[in-house]
């Protein structure tokens, strides 16, 4: 046990360093990316009243006429000193405040999507793995491929149609009904997109586990198959599933942003769509940077967790 601690620590240090580099890259890309989008906040705010004079006045007031290096310097100093990307050009609220206020629905969504994804994929993967190359395996395979191909917004629409409009079990959207009622359908939609990815990896992993020596030993000891599955195999599958969600957090989060739009959830995705629409640069930057940093952090933690959990990887390290 002791011998593996030092390389593990070194590995962690390397990973941290790399994450820091990625974070720096993210900040620079985010800054440049938003500035390449045509149109500006002045035109967005004025809309049909965007006359050249009015736009010029508003640009001046919003400070959009600064040079690019000057803007980058302001942006960087504010980010470092205040952890903020500036006040919204639309309503003057600091981006950090906006993000904090909009965090709740997104956190609920991601948390519940994770729970749903694990709860759905573990049994499916188990079913497929225990009936390897049998009918069940093929059914699961087709179900999950269908899951990959279903655009999240379309899944969302169908779920709304069935569970909200026809059955009336859940609100059609928004968060006025509170959590978790408001979040069930959106989370299910986001989960459907990631379940196929999880099931594929888990199935492969479970096939390995089922072949493992300890399972054979348990079988030889005469333990009922069901008990082996429930007590030993399943338990060894849930955590890897969670780790898998972590590795795919970027994908899950990206999907969640679209899902928020379909269900009119006032979360980060909604904030970002609005900000892109109104060219609210500080807010787009803020959302992009903070979500990217969250992704980096989650990936860092899950990678580390995976290394700690997986003896093979640890040996490799």
């Amino acid at each position, binding site marked *: 046990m002791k011998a593996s601690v030092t390389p593990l620590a070194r590995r962690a240090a390397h990973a941290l360093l790399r994450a820091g580099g990625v974070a720096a*890259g993210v900040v620079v890309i985010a800054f440049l990316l938003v500035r390449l*989008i045509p149109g500006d906040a002045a035109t967005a705010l004025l809309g049909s009243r965007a006359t050249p004079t009015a736009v010029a006045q508003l640009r001046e007031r919003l400070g959009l006429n600064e040079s690019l290096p000057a803007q980058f310097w302001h942006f960087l100093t504010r980010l470092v000193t205040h952890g903020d990307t500036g006040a919204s050009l639309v309503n003057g609220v600091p981006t950090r405040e906006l993000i904090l206020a909009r965090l709740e629905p997104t956190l609920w969504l991601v948390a519940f999507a994770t729970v749903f994804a694990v709860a759905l994929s573990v049994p499916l993967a188990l079913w497929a793995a225990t009936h390897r190359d049998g009918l069940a395996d093929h059914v699961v395979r087709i179900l999950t491929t*269908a899951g990959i*191909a279903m655009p999240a917004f*379309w899944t969302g629409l169908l779920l709304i149609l069935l569970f909200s409009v026809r059955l009336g079990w859940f609100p059609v959207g928004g968060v006025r009904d509170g959590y978790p009622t408001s979040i069930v359908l959106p989370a299910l939609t986001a989960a459907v997109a990631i379940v196929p990815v999880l099931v594929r990896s888990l199935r492969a992993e479970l096939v390995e586990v089922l*072949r493992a020596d300890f399972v054979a030993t348990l079988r030889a000891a005469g333990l009922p198959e069901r008990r082996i599955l429930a007590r030993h195999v399943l338990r060894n599958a849930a955590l890897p599933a969670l780790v898998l969600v972590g590795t795919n957090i970027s994908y899950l989060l990206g999907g969640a942003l*679209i899902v928020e739009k379909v269900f009119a959830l006032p979360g980060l995705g909604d904030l970002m769509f609005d900000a892109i629409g109104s060219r609210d640069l500080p807010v787009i930057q803020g959302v992009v940077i903070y979500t990217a940093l969250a992704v980096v952090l989650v990936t860092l933690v899950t990678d580390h967790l995976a290394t700690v959990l997986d003896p093979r990887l640890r040996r490799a390290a």
Partner: protein
Amino acid sequence: MTVAPAAVAANVPQRRRALAHPSLIAGAVVFGAVLLAALLAPLIVTHDPAAQNLGAALLPPSGEHLLGTDYLGRDVFSRLVYAARTDLRIGAVTVIVPFVAGTLLGSVAGYAGGRVDRLLGYLVDTVLAFPFYVLILAIVAMVGTGERGIYVAYALVGWVAYARVTRTATAVAVERPWVHAARESGLSHRRVLLRHVLPNTLPQAVVFLFTDVVFVIAAVVTLSYLGLGIQPPTADWGSMIADGRPFLTTKWWLATAPGLAVVVTGVGLSLLADGLTDLWGER
């Protein structure tokens, strides 16, 4: 129930050989049907997909219009079939640049290792840090809506997955004895990489290519749905879903039929990819 482990192992190759092909066959049949429909669209459709008839808008399905008409009186079935052309074409074209660039970069990084490998790893991590749609939306906003925006956005983002897949495969392949042998016989790096490594790593990238086309079609459909994808009046499944959305509760087929088309195409492609994995895995 309690089969001896040895027996299981012995059974596997036979059963797999028997059942791997069904996956391939099923995939080929499903996807082939979609492809055929796209290719033969002019022969299949009953109406000009762009022909409007404002007086006959939003008709329910009938013998004349198999899936009814849309809000401009266009035949939905004909548009559905023509949309296969649009989306398959865009799906196929979109993945070319990411496939080539990603495979190449991944091979070089996996082969060279060291600093080059670390640099690529850093680039991959940075791109992956951005939630997928955040990058795509920003780039599309930058380049402009329509096909060009999709190509550029996906070229900038999509290579990462291929680079990852190929890099891992290459790093494994490089350790193989025949690669060592090839190097020792004095062949250039380029020759070793192209002749001896790539043929072994390419199948994995190709398998991923199929899955990626599914991702791309889903992404294109999503962009069209957000009004940032295919420009009207070209039929595509995404804009058809978007057009049908106001009628979700009254004329449900308008939004569900194109969605199902996406799902069927995706299942076909994925099964094909699975079949190929099994087939090449056996070799």
